[in-house]
């Protein structure tokens, strides 16, 4: 009963956040709506007893991605947001169609054999077990992921900096 109420509240928060994030003209408002969506999702994770994932969700998405988005907006747009008159692009009907198609194709089968709620097995959430998993079977993945993150970091810095032309007159003093 409790869980059901919480589920509906959190889902409503998440869906509303996502909708506002995509629809809002003011980008800064949009980012904060997106963060509300992330927060709602993190609550849902908690509800599903995946608390480490919930923490990571908050840490990575709200803490890091949100701030990154804010910085990107501060660097590109005027503070007021975009003055784009026609905010919907031309291909919207195709987009809708594609989204619907993907939805149907992907979910038709699983929906038919969705387990009932009672099927949930009682588990004791443990970060320790997750940690052991991470080191034992998934260690290669972890290392590859670390490599990927490093590469992404360097790539991001390079892309954001642009190519630096060594100009003589640029050097101060």
């Amino acid at each position, binding site marked *: 009963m409790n869980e059901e109420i919480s589920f509906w509240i959190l889902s409503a928060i998440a869906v509303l956040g996502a909708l506002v994030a995509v629809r809002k003209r003011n980008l800064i408002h949009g980012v904060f709506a997106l963060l509300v969506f992330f927060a709602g999702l993190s609550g849902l994770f908690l509800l599903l007893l995946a608390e480490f994932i919930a923490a990571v969700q908050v840490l990575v998405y709200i803490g890091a991605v949100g701030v990154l988005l804010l910085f990107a907006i501060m660097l590109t747009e005027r503070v007021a947001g975009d003055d784009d008159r026609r905010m919907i692009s031309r291909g919207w009907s195709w987009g809708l169609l594609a989204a619907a198609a993907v939805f149907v194709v992907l979910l038709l089968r699983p929906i038919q054999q969705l387990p009932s709620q009672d099927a949930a097995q009682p588990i004791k959430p443990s970060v320790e077990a997750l940690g052991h998993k991470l080191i034992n079977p998934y260690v290669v993945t972890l290392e590859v992921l670390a490599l990927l993150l490093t590469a992404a970091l360097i790539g991001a810095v390079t892309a954001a900096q*642009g190519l630096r032309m060594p100009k003589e007159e640029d050097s101060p003093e």
Partner: protein
Amino acid sequence: MSTAAAPNYELIQQDGLETNLLEVSMGPHHPSTHGVFRMDVKLDGETVVDLRPVFGYLHRNHEKLAENMSYLSSMPFTDRLDYFNSMTNNWAYALAAEKLIEVEVPERAEYLRVIMAELTRLVNHVTLIGFFINDLGALGTPLLYAFREREKILDLFEQASGARMMCNYFRFGGLRNDVPEGWLKRAGEVVDRFPYFLDEYEQLLCENEIILSRTQGVGNLPRELAISAGVTGPMLRASGVAYDLRKVDQYGIYDRFKFRVPYTEGDTGDCYDRFMIRVLEMRESIGILKQALAGISEGEIMGNAPRVFKPKPAESYGRIEGPKGELGFYLIADGTPKPYRYRVRPPSLINLTVLRDMCLGGKIADAVIILGSIDIVLGEVDR
């Protein structure tokens, strides 16, 4: 502005990330512009790319007022120029007026003038250093320590002249009144106590890692620029020029005292130098004070100045080494009891002209401490 080697910062597209400039109007109601001063700053992120000093918010028509009243009447108004240092303002004005007429200043008055001027220097430097560290962000602790010492000197001023800050103590040809009995002894005690305070100050501040890194290399004022902009006082000495009017002009009886003029060797002239030069100057002032307090003798304090001050047509320029720099008064007499022209050379204003050159390329936090290290008083800048 000046043609000398000003540090020239052009907006460099650093590493490609180009951002919009942020224009900030710092002041006139900014906590650390020392009064109603305004800096229109253009910022690239945190870096100052342009700075325009705006002043005049405290303009009180001082010079024109003085031209419409008798010579002596404007003596109290000089107190309000640099309201920390009314004694030295008085002295500079008295010097200028005394050059218009033949007048002999008695020896005791000369000694007292030196004592008052050096005490004023202590007051000014102590307050400045307090405010300077406050600008660095030290939440008032050094400031209040400085004020504790300043109070003792202000007490002395009050006992001598009746006012703590607006002393109005000097007269053409001498002083308004003699100091009360026991004043010299009390002054001696204050002066004897002062070096301990300075020791404490130097121990706490001068080698503090954060203060060192915040002030060294910040707001460089090259020697050439300092000279060509007419900068005077501790600021000029911090830029490597050992120029002190007490040595150059030897006005009053400064030729009788032994003291040294601290200056920076080399061409740095940054905020740390300006800060340290003032600390060292205070030590020299204490030396002068001790000599003066030992050498003073009984006698008259008012010379043979005429009752009605009505000089023959002439012009004169009296200048002293004020705590902030060369404070000069330029007077043109036309035979009437009022000056035909009355002009002040305020050290604060002249020193302020190099603000832009020192701030460009620095951070916004640097601009604040550079302004603090210039040591301005808006009463004197705007007059």
